[in-house]
């Protein structure tokens, strides 16, 4: 049932008139106790990111081989643009100070050399993104995304969820393909098909027109729900966030998490990683700026959540469609490669560690003699989070054909917490 106009005015007016702390207070009070669910934020770095310059060999043979292959673009161990030391063997890009602080606080884990099983991947941006987001390596014919299948199979949904799934992109990403309840929301002000006097009547008519069962009907219904939600809530991105669109996206998500709208999964995109040319020498330049935007936004997001006591309820996972070649190309850039490091971030994350197996960057250790080899299936990382943090044991539904093994799991989010949401 639609809210009456009067109620809606009251809600909006009070939100504008009160301090944010008060808003949170009454919003929480209005929800059943214990209904706060977990939220998974899936941050996709579009373009294929140069993971070898993000989590970088720091010592020994790996370092020597790395420097041999990256004469100009290598990230230095010391001096200007020096990397952060993670665990001696690996460093984090010098511009990722915010992420380093999270690592030191034990809230950020690295899994190196992640990807699709050998031979199933693609060096095409588009096919590779599709396969990762569908969650079916080597198969582009899947009709639903892995996040959508998680939504379909998880027992951990908040029963009265208002916004169970959200994308901050202008259109819904493949990972949510099939989830017709997913909201997409790239901007919030004036988000309405009729800004005039008859806006509510307009929405009523749209809801009557689109009352069928097609994918378009669901998309419109979801749009109307989004608009109705926006009339009920008020999110302001705090000043602690940097002034970047990625930070705005994450700030919007944090606001929704604070409002307790039942957000289960959120997909966020951050592009600009296709660094074929002039990515920046000696740890600086274009790539460093990209890393800084990423790192600062993640840090602001986690700090914001932590300051509201919510960072234990959120895990953010970062991946891309591929890493880049081990060797720099002649244009001081890098071409399309294979494996990359993933990040898993959150209060419950067993962070401060580099997980996985680094296969090395010596010629003989590379996939097809050019790329960092995959030593960890990306589904192992995601399943770990799904099972142990999100409380969804149905890995076989989310990743058809993949078998998750609890004993083989990294325990990235602290081991079995099945049904910790309070569901029977």
């Amino acid at each position, binding site marked *: 049932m639609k809210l009456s106009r009067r109620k809606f005015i009251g809600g*909006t*007016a009070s939100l504008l*008139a009160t301090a944010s702390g008060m808003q949170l207070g*009454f919003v929480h009070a209005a929800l059943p106790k214990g209904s706060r669910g977990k939220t998974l934020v899936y941050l996709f770095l579009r373009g294929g990111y140069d993971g070898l310059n993000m989590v970088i060999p720091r010592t020994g043979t790996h370092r020597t081989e790395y420097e041999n292959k990256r004469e100009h673009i290598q990230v230095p161990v010391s001096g200007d643009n020096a990397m952060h030391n993670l665990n001696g063997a690996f460093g984090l890009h010098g511009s990722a100070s915010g992420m380093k602080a999270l690592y030191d606080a034990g809230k950020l884990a690295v899994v190196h050399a992640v990807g699709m099983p050998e031979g199933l991947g693609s060096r095409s941006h588009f096919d590779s993104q599709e396969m990762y987001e569908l969650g079916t390596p080597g198969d582009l014919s899947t009709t639903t995304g892995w996040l959508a299948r998680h939504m379909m199979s998880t027992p951990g949904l908040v029963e009265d969820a208002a916004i169970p799934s959200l994308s901050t992109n202008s259109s819904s990403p493949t990972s949510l393909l099939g989830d017709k309840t997913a909201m*997409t929301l790239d901007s919030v002000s004036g988000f309405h*098909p009729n*800004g005039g006097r008859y806006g509510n009547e307009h929405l009523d*008519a749209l809801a*009557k027109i689109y009352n069928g069962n097609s994918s378009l009907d669901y998309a419109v219904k979801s749009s109307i729900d989004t*608009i109705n939600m926006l009339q009920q809530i008020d999110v302001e991105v705090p000043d602690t966030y940097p002034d970047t669109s990625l930070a705005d996206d994450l700030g919007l998500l944090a606001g929704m998490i604070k409002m307790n709208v039942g957000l289960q999964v959120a997909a966020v995109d951050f592009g600009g990683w296709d660094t074929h040319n002039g990515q920046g020498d000696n740890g600086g330049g274009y790539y460093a700026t990209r890393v800084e935007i990423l790192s600062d936004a993640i840090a602001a997001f986690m700090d914001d959540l932590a300051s509201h006591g919510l960072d234990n309820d959120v895990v953010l996972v970062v991946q891309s469609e591929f890493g880049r070649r081990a060797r720099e190309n002649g244009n001081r850039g890098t071409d399309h490669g294979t494996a990359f490091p993933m990040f898993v971030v959150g209060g419950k994350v067993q962070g401060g560690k580099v997980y996985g197996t680094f296969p090395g960057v010596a010629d003989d250790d590379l996939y097809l003699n050019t790329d960092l080899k995959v030593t960890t299936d990306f589904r192992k990382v995601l399943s770990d989070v799904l099972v142990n943090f999100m409380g969804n044991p149905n890995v076989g539904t989310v990743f058809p054909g993949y078998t998750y093994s609890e004993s083989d799991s990294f325990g990235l989010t602290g081991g079995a917490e099945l049904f910790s949401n309070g569901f029977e």
Partner: protein
Amino acid sequence: MTNQTRRKFLFSALGGATLASGASMASVIPEMPAFKKRAINLNSKEFTLADSQAAVTAIPPFANVVLNRMGFGPRGNDIADFNALGGNDDARLQAYVDQQLDWSSIADTELNTRLSQAGYTTLNKSLTQLWTDYRRDPTNSFGYYEPVEEIERLAFLRAVYSKRQLLEFLADFWHNHFNIYGRDTYAAPTWTSWDRDVIRPPVGGVSNRPSGFENGHLMGNFREMLELSAKHPAMIYYLDNYVNSKASPNENYAREIIELHTLGAINYAGPDPQPGDINTITTSDYPDGINDKYADADVYEAMRFLTGWNVKDGGNPYGKDEENTGEWYFVGSDWHDEGQKQLLGRHWPAFTGVSEVYDMLDLLAFHPGTARHIALKLCTRFLSDTPPQSLVDKVSQTFFDARHAPDQLEQTYRTLLLSDEFKDTSTWGAKLKRPFETVVSAMRACDADFTVRPDDSESRYLMYYMERTGQRPFYWRAPDGYPDKRSHWEGGASLVNTWRTLDWLVDENVGRNDPDLMPVTDIMEAANLAAYTPNSIAEFWLKYLLKWEPTGGWSGTTLHGILSAFMSTPWDSDTNGSFWGPDFPIPIEDIVENSWPNYWNERVRGLVKLIFATPEFMQR
């Protein structure tokens, strides 16, 4: 800029308007409702819902189907003109396709009149002139972007007002096929040339193409078009071939010319093909055989072919030719990898020079895999996200058979447009219009009076709104072009922002001295209905905007009932609204004036916006 402007406030325009108009804030008790349950059952079938079209009232007549499938929808007298072309549907379609393919014989008076008044300044500048004026020596800091900002606005002007609807529809297709982000460094200043010299056929009967490339355009020959695209500075820069040399190879363009422009990912054997994955086929061009699929090894070889394929951009910082004209040139053996090469199973000896690049373009353009790839994309664009294989095969066959013909592409379209599959109206609604199509077709349906131009605020607003829809022209950053499946566009952000764009268009200038961009009030007045009632007004606008009616008229249909109810529901019943029925007579003066308390004009404009948002209008 204050912090305020960049923050995201989650309150609606409606809420803001209400507050501004004086609703009391202080006395309101915080009564935040528990968030309602969503109307949708989270564990039901919508999670496995395949892409599917929303139900429509009925299948429209043949003329409406055709004009929506091969253009941006009917405008003015288009339906009557189409129906006057012959004695039956087949004859009319045949005549219309002939007419549209013979595009230069179609007078474009209205477009040309508007164009001559619009103040476009870059359209007649040669590539070198554009390069000089906007790349080398822009007169102001925005100068770099003048060409692309003209062409993005012109895309609207042409799509709305040109009678060469098929040509405009195809220009949209080919811009996306050879997609370049229009704001890219060499693209923005040369965009007028990219649009004119690569994508569109030359106007006025005088070719602006180099000798041998007279047919390199969307109505001509794909091989010629491919080479023109390859030689344009916008492409050479966008996909990094301007730095591709034997000392510093860069595979970006090599990969995309195979994966996106020619063979397509459907013919990719993967990064590590196993025996049996790639087979040898023969064609009349290659009787000795070529590989049916490509592998990464072919991408790397293509990269070597393309080393030294470059642009005269002043040489810095890479020590190339010092000339700075924006023209293509081949650097020569300093940059070109002169070693022997292989591609798709064929072999080239060392020191072949630039001719091997032309051989490569031949091999790619004349490959049957390219025909399949482009046929699939064309059928997807015209007809359905999942076009019948029977049609793709026919179109592919024509594309392949005509690969050496000057009118190869025209022949290809003819096969598609005259096919039984194209004529089959039962598949109506399979395509969800993309935002550009929705907005353009709405402007056409509602007789928009909007000369989109380079330098006025309304045109700037239009671009701003289109950017929010996710489909501002030439604004897609990745080289694959705007997606062409409904799943991409069935998101709230795209749908709502498309409707917002129409909301703005319908309301813009209403009540001011400038003419309304969408003359809703004028049309309503000129309708001269016997009685203006919620029922009759809804009936009128359905027929006017959709340009057809089901047997027996719209009255009595579910859709009509919903729209009539929208017209007759009081908006604020507990204060000053009135109660009306569907046959309540509304004085036309009240509709024209938008007077208190019922604001009929605003109501009628809302009705128009709603019809644009129906499955009948949004799908084709």
